[in-house]
């Protein structure tokens, strides 16, 4: 059985988390590594703890220092935790035999939905939810953030597309004289166009590769920065092969497309006109 966050706020804003099992007569606690590190707490130390800022303090011995599981829902809040034996915390809070949540593991072969429905039929004063429902509800926030990131990504892609088109246009414009000479010495329009297309492909490929390297570097730096800032092992930025492929494909399509457009526009003119405008 697991008792989950029973929240009472200390004057020092410590979050108390109770853990079942162990000997309730032994008033030991486990302190989260970040809290231990910040306050210099070691195993064996005795610390005073109170449920209310003005309430009476009680002595507890630190039995363990633990590292909490990286949880995106709580990592950014910067809350620090101490774990108690369940009965000990309930007594400390003056609410014996009272819990916020009860975790239930069903036997193999039994569906969590039907188990939850059955508990709700017979239970009194509480409601049971399958873990999947709670996970889906609590992930709503992250789904919203993910949609927001996609929207921002779309705007960024539009901005890069315009930038790329601009650069490619200039790059091809720069080749006006070369195009004029090539056309005047008898090269077919198609040959010159293909030459420009090849150049655009090369540029887009090199740019995409450099972009992927830059993105990898940015990912490493982002993770380093935020993992330090929030003292967590959570991964904040994750560069997956899918993302690299999508970005490379977009760069190539946009780069080559922009190069082709610009080249087609340039080669629409006669060689003499190109020469005069060069």
């Amino acid at each position, binding site marked *: 059985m697991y008792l989950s966050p029973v929240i*009472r706020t200390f004057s020092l804003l410590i979050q108390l988390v109770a853990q079942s099992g162990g000997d309730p007569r032994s008033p030991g606690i486990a302190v989260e590594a970040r809290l231990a590190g910040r306050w210099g707490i070691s195993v064996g130390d005795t610390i005073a703890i109170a449920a209310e800022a003005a309430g009476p303090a009680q002595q507890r011995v630190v039995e363990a220092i633990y590292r909490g599981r990286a949880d995106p829902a709580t990592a*950014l809040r910067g809350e620090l935790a101490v774990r108690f034996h369940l009965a000990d915390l309930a007594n400390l809070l003056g609410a014996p035999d009272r819990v916020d949540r009860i975790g239930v593991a069903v036997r193999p072969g039994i569906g969590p939905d039907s188990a939850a429905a059955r508990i709700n039929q017979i239970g009194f004063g509480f409601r049971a939810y399958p873990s999947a429902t709670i996970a889906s509800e609590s992930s709503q926030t992250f789904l919203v953030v993910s949609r*927001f990131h996609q*929207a921002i990504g779309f*705007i960024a892609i539009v*901005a890069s597309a315009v930038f790329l088109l*601009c650069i490619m246009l200039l790059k091809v414009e720069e080749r006006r004289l070369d195009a004029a000479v090539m056309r005047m010495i008898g090269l077919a329009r198609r040959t010159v166009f293909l030459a420009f297309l090849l150049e655009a492909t090369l540029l887009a490929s090199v740019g995409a590769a450099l972009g992927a390297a830059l993105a990898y570097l940015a990912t490493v730096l982002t993770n380093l920065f935020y993992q330090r800032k929030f003292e967590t092992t959570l991964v904040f930025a994750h560069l997956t092969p899918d993302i690299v492929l999508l970005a490379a494909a977009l760069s190539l399509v946009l780069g080559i497309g922009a190069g082709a457009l610009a080249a087609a526009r340039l080669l629409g003119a006669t060689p003499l006109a190109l020469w005069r405008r060069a």
Partner: protein
Amino acid sequence: MIGRWAARNAVRHPIRTGLVVLGIAVASALLLDMTMLSGGMERSFENMLLSRGFQIRMSPKGTLPFDTEATVAGVTPIVAALRSDPAIAAAGAAVGIPVHVRKADSLVTLVGYGVDPKGQGFYQVLEGSDLAPGDSAGMLVGAPAAARLGWRLGDTVRLLGRLDPQSAEAGIERLMTVRAVVRWLYDSRDQLSVGGPYRVVRAMGRFVDPDPGSMIMIKVREGHDVDSVATRLAARYPGVQVNSVAALVRQFRNRLVYFQQLSLILATISLVVAVLLVATILAITVNERLGEVAVLRAIGVTRARLVGLVLIEAAAVTAVGTGLGIGLGLVTAGWLDDILTSFPGLPAAISFFVPEPAAMFRATTVMIGAGLGAAGYPAWLAARAPIALTLRSEAE
């Protein structure tokens, strides 16, 4: 005359200029959105809290108002004492409980607020009239609840309270008449809420504390300092959390660190894109026109004037792009706001992107400044062009 030369040059390559303007427009749109995002939610939160002019909240220790089912015990004497305080213009308690109504065969659960119209800071009457003193059967309905349940002014509704979770039998029932459709300021989007007289609604809930209240709102009299009143009240009521709006905004700001950093990063990226675009295009354009620049220098145009022209061209292109970008930014901000305000439980009154003139002015100024900064190198190229050497290479 030279201005005419610069102006005609700007439209000499319409596709190129168009693309630069478009690029700057997209970058400025992103910059504006990020400028709005960086402070918008905080300001929107502050506006929401101050929308009825109540600058101080008293709530159960360790919670935000209506954050948990925790209550403040003994609110009646506290409110009476607050109302007699010369520094306080108005004070009122509120309580929140679950209430229910039957609709066809199903049971609909709503949030029920017990309010004191004499000192309430968390609803606005949209239609109808507020609860009158002594009206014990009047009810205020939030717009989403009115729409969902088809209630109109004057309808009588049976509210159920203290519901037995097993039998679904109500421990208490009250017949209430809809007096007004209101906007509950702290409700999330589509939240179903109703309100009634404080004592009536409180009687329908289950409470451990005697004389409970979820929150007390306080309006400080003009000429009195809000923070010092809050400090005084905190000392007088140590068992209760006293927060000024400014303090709540400060706490809220800490929760927004992600959006602040994201907006900073994306705003920086948009500026870098704009700077690269302007610098690259102008550098290439100046290089293309270096011959003309050398001729202008030869016939007596000063360096300062050429630098000025390049800067004006950059400013003009950036200003046009930014002008378009502001419009585009407002459209995309609406889109992004729709996404972010779908956060579960977020009060509907909160916006992430608040279109304030200050944000638009800041984004425009920063973007034009960046455009001018980006023109620095091309301007230097124009100013430093060696006349003789350039003319010689042009002649070859």
